[in-house]
């Protein structure tokens, strides 16, 4: 990390600057750990529902397009293999189910879950479960952040966690390992690709936490704005090096349409941005409503 040259004993807490004062006043009634958690789960649920609408509208067309490409490829493979498969007059769906038999995965009508169910009930299950879970995790981080970042109100530190979380757990991982549509990716490498993806997520999360810790450490000397800028630069530099060190994955075949790949990846990015964005905004608003100083005076008196 940058700025590790200053070894400063964490002992003397001189209250020279107003930013460094950390009295522990009485807690806000709504903003306990469980208060944060409930708001996070609710915000995540809302974010998951809105994310479904975006993913269904923007994301499903390229997913269907990619599956069409996959099934066309499966058909040609079937024709090439020919006699090895003794199935009656291979239809497109059936040929895909055949090729997918090895990895236990299929999209066609032979699949356990039909495409129409996958794109509706399946998709909303995924976005709502993932959104609610993410909302809970983000709210716990926000509970920890409250009162630990200078003059930020609880809503401000919550928004900070949301923005940092989006950058560290969605945006930066996407730039290194972008989402892939169906038909892209070798099923034989799913194990290593999944391992690399989650390892990268973990490293990114740790570096982001270190950046936040660094911000707190150097803020008494540089001020909060400069401290945040130093930490941001440190995060970017470290993650560039990490991304350079991690293995390259490129399993896009030459046959896959470039425009379709771009359409899918931008839709995936929009889906993730929607989830994080709605979650962060809703949770911050809910936290602000629970902040005694965050309520409007008119709202109290009237």
């Amino acid at each position, binding site marked *: 990390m940058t700025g590790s040259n200053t070894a400063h004993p964490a002992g003397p807490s001189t209250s020279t600057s107003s930013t460094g004062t*950390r009295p*522990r*006043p009485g*807690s*806000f009634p709504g903003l*306990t*750990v*469980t208060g944060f958690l409930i708001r996070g789960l609710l915000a995540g649920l809302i974010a998951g529902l809105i994310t479904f609408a975006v*993913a269904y509208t923007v*994301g*499903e067309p390229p*997913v269907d397009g990619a599956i069409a490409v996959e099934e066309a490829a499966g058909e040609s493979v079937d024709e090439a293999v020919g006699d090895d498969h003794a199935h009656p007059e291979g239809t497109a769906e059936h040929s895909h189910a055949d090729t997918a038999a090895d*990895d*236990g*995965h*299929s999209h066609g009508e032979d*699949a*356990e*879950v039909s495409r129409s169910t*996958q794109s509706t009930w*399946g*998709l909303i*299950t*995924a*976005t709502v*479960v*993932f959104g*609610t*879970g*993410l909302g*809970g*995790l983000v709210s*716990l981080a926000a*509970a*920890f952040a*409250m*009162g*630990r970042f200078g003059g*930020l*109100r609880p809503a401000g530190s919550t928004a900070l966690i949301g923005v940092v979380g989006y950058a560290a757990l*969605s945006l930066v991982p996407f730039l290194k*390992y972008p*989402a892939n*549509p*169906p038909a892209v*990716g070798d*099923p034989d490498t*799913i194990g290593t*690709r*999944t*391992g690399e*993806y*989650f390892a990268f997520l973990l490293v990114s999360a740790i570096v982001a936490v270190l950046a936040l810790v660094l911000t707190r450490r150097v803020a008494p000397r540089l001020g909060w704005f400069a401290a945040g800028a130093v930490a941001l630069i440190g995060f970017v530099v470290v993650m560039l090096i990490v991304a350079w060190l991690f293995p390259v994955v490129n399993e896009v075949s030459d046959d896959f349409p470039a425009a379709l790949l771009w359409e*899918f990846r931008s*839709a*995936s990015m929009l889906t993730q941005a929607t*989830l994080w964005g709605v979650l962060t905004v809703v949770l911050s608003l809910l936290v602000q409503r629970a*902040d005694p*100083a965050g309520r409007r*005076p008119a709202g109290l008196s009237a």
Partner: protein
Amino acid sequence: MSQAAIPPRSVPTLAVPSLPIRTILPWALLAGIVLLIAVYFVSSEQGALAVFSGSGIHEWVHDGRHLLGFPCH
């Protein structure tokens, strides 16, 4: 801003309290584990790893897994 009738307990800007780590930690462990399991089932079950055999869960969350950016297959 008519704050004449309000008793002196109300301060213009309330200092923000911080929650002690020891009150956060139990919740972070409990909720963290439960929520990470939920995230795992959406993101990875019956892909690279599998608790349950078959492909029903994988297929059910298939589209979401792709669009949320996880390696699917």
